[in-house]
């Protein structure tokens, strides 16, 4: 039976990693590793199933031969069936637990981490001093606007770094950020993204304060596109550390992208 558990585990791993769903749990580059692992688990399961059935056939044959042999010449009660039974693979009972992640995937199909995780962040976004130094001395600035648009699209982490390291670069520029809405402690909203370096267990949220009026229909986890201007950092209401801010010109609801984690 446990071979079927493995078969299910391998099949679900394959289907998750061949589609888009795996992007909610692990980093995009992890896909080939998952596909190979899923295929190997399926292989192990099929090998077990085949071996199990061929063993059963063998045992039945062996049992028949043994019984017919015994009927002719009785032998001491040794060997025979007992010996064969020991050769079965007794799969451990703990293996049934492998059905738990399979069940959660099939029943809940949890989506990528969002506002709940972002709101739990209690420290400034981790920005390396070397990254700050790099943008401070970068003469090329933010780079050109998006083609045919009056703004430049930036990753939230990049915005947070430039906002601290080289605010002058935003002079006269419009910026576009993409992410989900997270309520801010003490009122107001952030646009947030989650960074992962391996899987969702190592999530690091990055949030930028939205400076501007919110509409009634804003909800946590709603994906939005924010177009706006740089504004000076504000202090976190309880933590007291500076947070990057964008003055909002326009907020448009969008759909959650397949790969919602920021690189």
């Amino acid at each position: 039976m446990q071979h079927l558990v493995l078969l299910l585990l391998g099949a679900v791993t394959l289907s998750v990693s061949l589609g888009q769903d795996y992007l909610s749990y692990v980093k995009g580059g992890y896909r080939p590793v998952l596909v190979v692992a899923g295929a190997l688990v399926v292989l192990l399961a099929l090998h077990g199933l085949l071996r199990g059935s061929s063993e059963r056939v063998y045992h039945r044959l062996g049992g028949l031969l043994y019984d017919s042999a015994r009927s002719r010449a009785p032998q001491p009660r040794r060997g025979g069936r007992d010996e064969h039974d020991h050769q079965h693979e007794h799969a451990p009972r703990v293996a049934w637990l492998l059905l738990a992640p399979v069940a959660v995937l099939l029943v809940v199909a949890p989506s990528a981490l969002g506002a709940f995780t972002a709101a739990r962040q209690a420290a400034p976004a981790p920005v390396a001093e070397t990254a700050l130094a790099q943008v401070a001395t970068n003469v090329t600035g933010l780079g050109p606007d998006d083609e045919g648009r009056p703004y430049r699209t930036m990753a939230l982490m990049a915005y947070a770094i430039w906002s601290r390291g080289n605010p002058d670069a935003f002079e006269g520029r419009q910026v576009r950020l993409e992410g989900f809405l997270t309520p801010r402690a003490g009122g107001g909203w952030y646009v947030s993204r989650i960074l992962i370096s391996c899987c969702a267990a190592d999530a690091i949220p990055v949030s930028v304060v939205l400076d501007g009026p919110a509409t009634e229909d804003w909800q946590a986890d709603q994906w939005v596109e924010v177009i706006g201007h740089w504004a000076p950092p504000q202090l976190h209401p309880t933590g007291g550390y500076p947070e990057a801010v964008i003055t909002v010109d326009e907020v448009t609801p969008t759909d959650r992208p397949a790969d919602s984690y920021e690189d």
Partner: protein
Amino acid sequence: MLGIVVALVLVGRYVVPDLFDGPVLAAWSTVFVAVCLQALPFLVLGVLLSGAIATLVPASFFTRALPSRPQLAVPVAGAAGVVLPGCECASVPVAGSLVRRGVSPAAALAFLLSAPAINPIVLVATAVAFPDDPEMVAARFVASLLVAVLMGWLWHALGRDDWLVLRHRPEVPTGTGRWAALLSSARHDLLHAGGFLVVGGATAATLNVLVPRSWLEAVADHSVLAVLVLAVLAVVLAICSEADAFVAAGLTSFSLTARLTFLVVGPAVDVKLIALQAGTFGPRFALRFAPATFVVAVLCALAVGWALL
């Protein structure tokens, strides 16, 4: 185990009253699935390697490759951890297989502790995560290797063989091909270790979602408490050793030594690893080995942090 989970849920319900509201459970499910999916390839690698050790590599190879005196075999096996490019999920079945093949438990345990911590992938990830502090890579390497070797020697001096119960592995019928034997052994290990991995993954996801990050910031300025808190955090979060450096880099309010402790403790003791060890070597082993490793890892990280950082 079930009792622990129930207790955690009850405590969690008290700490976070809206525990069973949507977002908490949704985040838990995501992290739980993520830990299991992320660990699966490493586990598959580990059980296949372990199967290969059990069936393809002759036992005489290890007696020739390792010094016969366990005191010397421990550092050699610890240094050999450099070659297994996996995380902790891969090294547990491999270490179990080594003991079955006649390698002294002390040496196998040194390998078990060093492999997930000092392999090239982990060291490169650490260098990428700490661009401002390149000495972190050297500190991690030295401290983790030190933990592995000290624990190996400690086991040799104090460990008793009856604490270590290798579970019964079914005999492969005679006449089975070596490849079929390898697959059977790998499948059995996968079913067994996989079940324990799920227990560890569920525990890690629960603590990941329940422990408020603001608790961490409250102790960051306290030098001793900060080290202990990050050591405990490494145990409860059970982040893969190839990604833990990025999380440590994010704990910017903590001292470098505290973050080094997080990196040294994590690959050696965490809830996922304790579950896997209990499954492979027996609960009596895990109950003694995990706390001892925790203490040795914290002390080594403090010593190396003081000397190098």
